[in-house]
């Protein structure tokens, strides 16, 4: 569906025969399906790194998909990626803020245990499926686990810049759009993130 700047333009589009409109919507849906299929797994892993919880990560990704489809599907497809990650990062920040408030309340409530986010994870969850042999899988899993721990130690903006630039492959301009800041800030956050990660993980990693 194209974007309408004026009511007349919209009416002109509305007046085209129904099959033409149907084809346009079908093309747009197909393109959106392709885009979401490309980004969904990486987006999930990035959300999981930030939130630690797979269910929360799935919720945030699902919410970002719905918001993109409802509000921005009519935008040019080139704009979808930064928009999607901006929605995702906002969702992650909102959830982290809610968790912080919840933790503060739990301190004051008697008889309430620590947040379940800190529960020990089942080691089997980290074992990957596939045809690779067990030692290699274990090595991969350990490497990612170390990287995740190091990423969680970073300030949120540095982590966002690193994941969007390095994991998702966004350029500086799109990363700036996704983070809602200037390109200069993106470069600064990214550079500091790389320094911090290298220091923490060392050359051996």
């Amino acid at each position, binding site marked *: 569906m194209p974007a309408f700047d004026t009511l007349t333009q919209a009416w002109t589009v509305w007046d085209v025969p129904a099959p033409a409109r149907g084809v346009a919507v079908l093309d747009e849906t197909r393109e959106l399906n392709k885009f979401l299929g490309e980004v969904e797994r990486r987006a999930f892993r990035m959300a999981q790194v930030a939130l630690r919880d797979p269910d929360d990560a799935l919720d945030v990704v699902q919410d970002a*998909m719905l918001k993109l489809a409802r509000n921005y599907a009519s935008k040019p497809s080139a704009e979808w990626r930064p928009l999607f990650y901006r929605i995702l990062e906002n969702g992650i920040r909102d959830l982290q803020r809610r968790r912080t408030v919840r933790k503060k309340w739990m301190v004051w409530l008697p008889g309430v245990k620590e947040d379940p986010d800190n529960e020990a994870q089942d080691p089997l969850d980290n074992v990957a499926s596939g045809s690779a042999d067990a030692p290699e899988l274990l090595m991969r*899993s350990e490497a990612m686990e170390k990287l995740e721990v190091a990423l969680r130690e970073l300030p949120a903006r540095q982590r966002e810049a690193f994941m969007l630039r390095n994991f998702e492959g966004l350029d500086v301009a799109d990363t700036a759009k996704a983070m809602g800041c200037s390109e200069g800030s993106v470069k*600064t956050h*990214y550079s500091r993130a790389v320094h911090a990660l290298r220091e923490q993980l060392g*050359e051996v990693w």
Partner: protein
Amino acid sequence: MKEIAEESNPSAGAFETHSREVFSRSVESLDMRVISRLNHARQAALEAAVQRRPWFLQVRVWTPAAGVTAAAVLGVALWMGAAAGHHPPAVADNAATLEDLDIFASSDEGSGDALEMLQNDIDFYDFADTAANAVPVANSGPAA
């Protein structure tokens, strides 16, 4: 915030490449439960995209319903007005005027059409008007 240039040295580049590879492998090894849930989420989003439509495109959907409703309301109002014996006052006030016009325009006057009669007598009324306004000649003689 002071801007710092992005990493460009080879070891930093190797670190970035390695971390990207590690992340990509972890994405490839996601379990089927997560992949399935992501797929469901994508289908729900696509459905939402298809169902979304701007408000001005929804007008046509509601127009027939609004038309039927308006007609029904008008019908009920007229029916209730007739049942109560109520007529619009404007029609009642003008009833006598309409009756007069009807008599005036009717051709049942015996001597012919009233309008035609009025047209024929215009010359007489014109003469009478001139005569009434004329100065009497007999009384206007020079004074002795």
